[in-house]
């Protein structure tokens, strides 16, 4: 029981990380808190819903192909948004950025409602992932295990890109010192646009991957953005490893909390968040995280 609950927590943590990673990546580089991140996640889920019946329905390959194509489309939408709106307000104050990204939230929500209606939809799960691995009396469901594995692949891919490629060097340079990077002839605009594209892709990916495991409707955006923020705050906004640690801590705390303190499981998470915030203000994490 403790074992399953721990695994449950890890699984939920990975889903949370997938959501939070794009948010924290975009913030790390451009210092923009993208409130529309949940909306991009939702779009990923709806696009997957459209694509799954078209590409080898029921198969594992078809599902992953649908998710990736959906995420690519979300990424394109993200680029259009970045180029037309966000690019103009990188130097504006936080309030302006808040308003612009919230405008996108409202636009996407209404478009989704117009296209797909207000009812929840179900994205079919690939047949191969329906079951569970049964060990004695313990059930370990297949679907979250595969999502967890996919999450690990994404984490490794991100680490590789950020720390071992030229694109990653440019990205870190832009994050560390924008002015100096620009002086050295690095195209700042291109970096910002690519990072936003990558962040939107991650959002779409998370949305598509999680779609078969819950309800998909036009209100998914707010549900998602709140949990993503909690994870980012615990991990330090802009800090990728922090987001991973934060997501796993939130997931496991919640799962264990449900078992031992069912009335307090949500409070526990906020207590952790408060503790981290207080700790950080004392300087232990070194102020703003990169």
């Amino acid at each position, binding site marked *: *029981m403790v074992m*399953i*609950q721990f695994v*449950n*927590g890890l*699984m*939920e943590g990975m*889903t949370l990380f997938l959501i939070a990673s794009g948010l924290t990546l975009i913030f790390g580089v451009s210092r923009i808190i993208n409130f529309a991140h949940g909306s991009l996640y939702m779009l990923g889920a709806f696009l997957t819903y459209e694509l799954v019946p078209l590409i080898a329905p029921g198969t594992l390959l078809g599902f992953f192909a649908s998710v990736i194509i959906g995420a690519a489309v979300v990424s394109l939408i993200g680029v259009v948004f970045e180029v037309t709106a966000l690019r103009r307000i990188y130097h504006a104050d936080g309030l302006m950025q808040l308003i612009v990204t919230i405008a996108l939230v409202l636009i996407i929500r209404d478009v989704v*409602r117009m296209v797909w*209606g*207000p*009812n*929840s*939809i*179900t994205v*079919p*799960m690939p047949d191969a992932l*329906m*079951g*569970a691995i*049964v060990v004695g009396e313990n*059930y370990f*469901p*297949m*679907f*979250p295990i595969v999502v967890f594995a996919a999450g690990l692949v994404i984490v490794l891919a991100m680490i590789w890109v950020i720390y071992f490629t030229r694109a990653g060097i440019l990205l870190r340079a832009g994050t560390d010192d924008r002015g100096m990077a620009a002086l050295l002839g690095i195209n700042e605009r291109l970096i910002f646009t690519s990072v936003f594209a990558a962040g939107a892709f991650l959002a779409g990916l998370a949305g598509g991957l999680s779609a*078969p*495991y*819950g*309800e998909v*409707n*036009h*209100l998914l955006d707010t*549900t998602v953005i709140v949990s993503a923020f909690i994870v980012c705050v615990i991990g330090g906004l802009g800090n990728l490893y922090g987001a991973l640690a934060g997501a796993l801590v939130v*997931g496991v705390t*919640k*799962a264990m909390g*449900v*078992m031992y303190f*069912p*009335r307090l*499981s*949500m409070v526990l998470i906020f207590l952790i968040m408060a503790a981290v915030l207080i700790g950080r203000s004392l300087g232990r994490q070194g102020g703003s995280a990169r």
Partner: protein
Amino acid sequence: MLEVNRGGFAALGLALMTAFAGQTARAEEPVKIGFAADLTGACAALSEDEMNAVKIAVDELNAKGGILGRKVELVVRDSQTKPDEGAKVARELIVDQKVDVLTGVCSSAVMLAESAVSAEFKIPFYATIGSTQRANIELYQPYFWQTQANATMEAYAAAEYVAKKSEWKTIATMGSDYEWGHTSVAAFSERLKKLRPDVTIIEPIFPKVGETAMAPYITTALNTKPDAVFAALFGGSLGSLIKQGQGFGFFQRTNLVTLMTVDTLQSMGSAMPASNVYGIARAPFFALEQTPEVKAFVEKYRAAYKEYPTDWSINGYDGLMFYAAAAEHAKSVAPDAIIKAISEISYDGLRGKGLKVRAFDGQMNAPSYVGKAAKVADYDFPILTEIEKFDGAALMMPEDAIAEARKAAKK
């Protein structure tokens, strides 16, 4: 001087006009239905189904010459699933639009907010989706009634159904962590204990509202090896429970008893487990007695909206038709005449004959339906089979119990 005079004349003219309008225009003025519904926000899908059906009801009434020979007019406002917004639009409908009756609400919180406005202006208000029994008990006001089973009645219906499954000995319970989830679980446990003292009811667990990561709750519930799990969940939490439960062998290891209206059945589609899901419903069209009226309504609804009516549609239609019947009986739409009439008439609606509202708390003896979810040949979504219809009268809280609860709430 001239200015003052002109102002005075204008005021006098205005006063005369309103007085005049008040006296003569009664016959031609339409009966205005103030439809303050949660068309956006969490309740959007339910409210839209309700509104679709209410539009059909309005057309039908008008085709027959309206209510008391007056045309029926629907004035729609969006209460956004927010109590303050609901109170605001309810006020606007009453004060500016001069509606004769207020309805449409879905969320329980918005319902209580609008009910308070209805009490303030003494304008009748009825609910056909929102179903908190607080509107019948401590927050009851005489201009209110509801035409569907309230949360307690629904939970009682579930308990009656579960009690008949003699092979079920251990029942786990869970509910959304807010008023509805808590009252449903409490009412279910109370009635089941009475009916089946031999059953063990496990301490309930309460996932937060809108929770979609259900795995920890599923594991906790299954750990008690229950024969069935009663879950007062809806929307995202319910969908997630069903989808995520399959990976834990939930539907091989136990049974689920939960809210299962037509929209949920449709959105679950192929993800519905082949067996072991039992649903409580308000008015599933396939379980209604197939009278010519029901058949005609379903056909009309499908023709207009290209989908089957949901429980919310059926109840929205029944609600307005009941109001029309009350107005015809009272020969007036004056608030006090309507309120007197609602408890005098017996109405034959889509959900069957003899629907009545109890004067004491504004509760209709509305039925609940419980059945087993299954895929059948006629529909491309699962429906409820082996359905049992529970008459509302047997599920309503007795008047003295309500009086007691009201007293307790005042303390």
